[in-house]
């Protein structure tokens, strides 16, 4: 099986607030450093990746963040339009069919049509878009929606095909399903934190992803605290009197968080059959390109 950085499509999933955007950017950056041309696709309501690199939001236009690293914000309305135009060819026909009150209804009623066209756009970038008669991107990173919605997002072709079996959309959905199931081309990673709820959700998500046969990428355990003090040291400093009260509390806090990290790392290693990649907690006053660089260096050797 090819290394993660050699896949066409890398999907990053996980609960909200675990650092999916950070890991998406970091994985993209690691690939870009190896000379791959990478596009990071964000599909949630608010885009974040461009801001990490001090750039204005991409919006629906692809923006260069660093040499070889690009991002785009995939939004339902534009994706719908692009996809509709691609399928229907004629602008007037598209307008007639989609830019009216009936289409608004249709967008809401057709099962997850918004997700379908967004996923369709990601698929198009990953496998169809060409530049000088070769594929434009070596790798597309999909920063997927948070857990519950993330799985819905990835299984949308499957659900759609149960309802609709003919037409261009159904045909593309089939190709999408093939791509999402192909371990040579695709990898679906999970991001989590060393905390109870995120860890439990990662366990559920991993199981659901495997049930749907998505190629299992690594489990990123983000914001890990490594133990720094022995219990004897913490005890001694804590008892060291008023002048060591601050230091004692800091050491105790640190070890409490390191305990949690250790506990959830062990739990996840036991229950999630994926390669576990630890990402250290970063103490940054501003979370920008430097932080992404650090995360990307921390994970790249394992990818």
């Amino acid at each position: 099986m090819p290394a993660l950085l050699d896949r066409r499509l890398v999907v990053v999933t996980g609960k909200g607030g675990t650092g999916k955007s950070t890991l998406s950017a970091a994985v993209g950056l690691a690939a870009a450093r190896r000379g791959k041309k990478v596009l990071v696709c964000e599909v949630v309501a608010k885009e974040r990746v461009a801001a990490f690199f001090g750039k204005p939001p991409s919006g629906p236009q692809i923006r260069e963040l660093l040499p070889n690293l690009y991002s785009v914000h995939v939004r339902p309305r534009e994706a719908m339009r692009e996809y509709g135009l691609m399928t229907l060819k004629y602008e007037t026909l598209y307008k007639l069919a989609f830019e009216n009150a009936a289409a608004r209804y249709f967008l809401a009623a057709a099962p997850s049509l918004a997700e379908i066209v967004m996923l369709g756009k990601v698929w198009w970038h990953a496998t169809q878009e060409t530049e000088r008669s070769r594929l434009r991107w070596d790798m597309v990173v999909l920063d997927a929606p948070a857990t519950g919605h993330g799985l819905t997002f990835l299984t949308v072709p499957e659900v759609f095909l149960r309802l609709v079996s003919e037409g261009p959309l159904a045909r593309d959905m089939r190709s999408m399903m093939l791509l999402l199931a192909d371990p040579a081309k695709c990898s679906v990673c999970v991001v989590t934190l060393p905390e109870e709820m995120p860890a439990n959700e990662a366990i559920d998500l991993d199981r659901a992803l495997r049930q749907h046969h998505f190629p299992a990428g690594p489990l990123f355990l983000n914001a890990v605290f490594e133990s720094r003090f022995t219990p004897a040291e913490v005890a001694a400093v804590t008892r060291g009197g008023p002048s060591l009260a601050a230091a004692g509390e800091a050491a105790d806090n640190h070890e409490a968080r390191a305990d949690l990290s250790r506990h959830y790392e062990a739990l996840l290693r036991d229950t999630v059959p994926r390669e576990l990649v630890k990402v250290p907690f970063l103490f940054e006053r501003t979370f920008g390109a430097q932080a992404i660089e650090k995360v990307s260096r921390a994970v790249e050797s394992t990818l």
Partner: protein
Amino acid sequence: MKALQGREVLCCVGSGGVGKTTAAAALALRAAVEGKRALVLTIDPARRLANSLGLKTLGNQETRIEQSLFADAHLSPRGEMWAMMLDLKRTWDELVRRAARTPEQAQAILGNKLYQTLSTSMAGSLEYMAMEKVYELYSSGRFDLIVLDTPPTSNALDFLHAPDRILDVLDNNAMRLVLGPLLKAGKIGFRLLAAPSSLVLRTLARFTGIDFLRDLAAFMLAFEGMYEGFKERAAKVKELLASSRTGFVLVTSPNPLTTQEALFFHRALESDGIRTAAVVVNRVQRDPRRHGGPDNLPALQEALRLAQIKDENHLSDRLCQTLTEQAILADLDRREVDRLRDTLRGVPLFTVPRLRKDVHDLAGLWQIGEYLGGE
């Protein structure tokens, strides 16, 4: 929380992963201990509340928290605490059965292929049913307080306008016009229809295939006559949410991204004429420097020497680094809390410090609830 007194429904809103479920459960627990019949309703697809309450399962049925769990936490509530997790599909089914004019109509809808998908995976469906359930529980009069733990919606407007949007799907004149030929055909058995006649219909069919449009027409036909009932009820739900009986509690963590979303949520509520009742900032790092004492290397080395602790394996270096790191975290958190306080002037704000351990039992919830107690 004084700010929340007199409210009968509390909606905890905020982005995912900020401890909404824990805050919601903590509020219900406080109310129960104070003598109320309080229910916490969670609709998150992941089974979080069950975790927080030390329960193994939590169905669409209200479950009373057992006395033994309270005893374990050294609590003796004067009221009752109940919990439930919303089952999306079942709540939809109940609503359809109640609104249908005949059992046959209900069956026709429940059996429709499209209904099955719509009821479980349509965007906004979860939000709509959550509020539907809140309204049902509220109307039952069985509870003095209902605390709703909302799904991690990225768009506040989605949450408040979900009923409108879904109802629009059930009865849309424009779509009726487009599907017209299929709807008419439906009345005499639409399988007879060979091909869609209108241009728009033909174009849509090229996109999705005609079968889907036929299903859609069948679905709309099945719903005929029920729309008014749905609409009336949705209006009542909205009325309850906008009234002073309901309070919206913004829950956030001190992370800049989530506070931004909290503020966005606050503005969205405001634009709907709803005031935020309170803000809860969870997991705020306390600054170890509040104890005073040295925080630079030479002073720490001196303090260790005086306390007769050996400075082995660079202990002083490690302590100094740890102090610096936690001071950074505390500064960052304080900055965000201040920003929230400034922007939300007049809205009661509560901070809950980061606890040493995860909350997974009533004792932990109670501890959190204590920080929500003052003013």
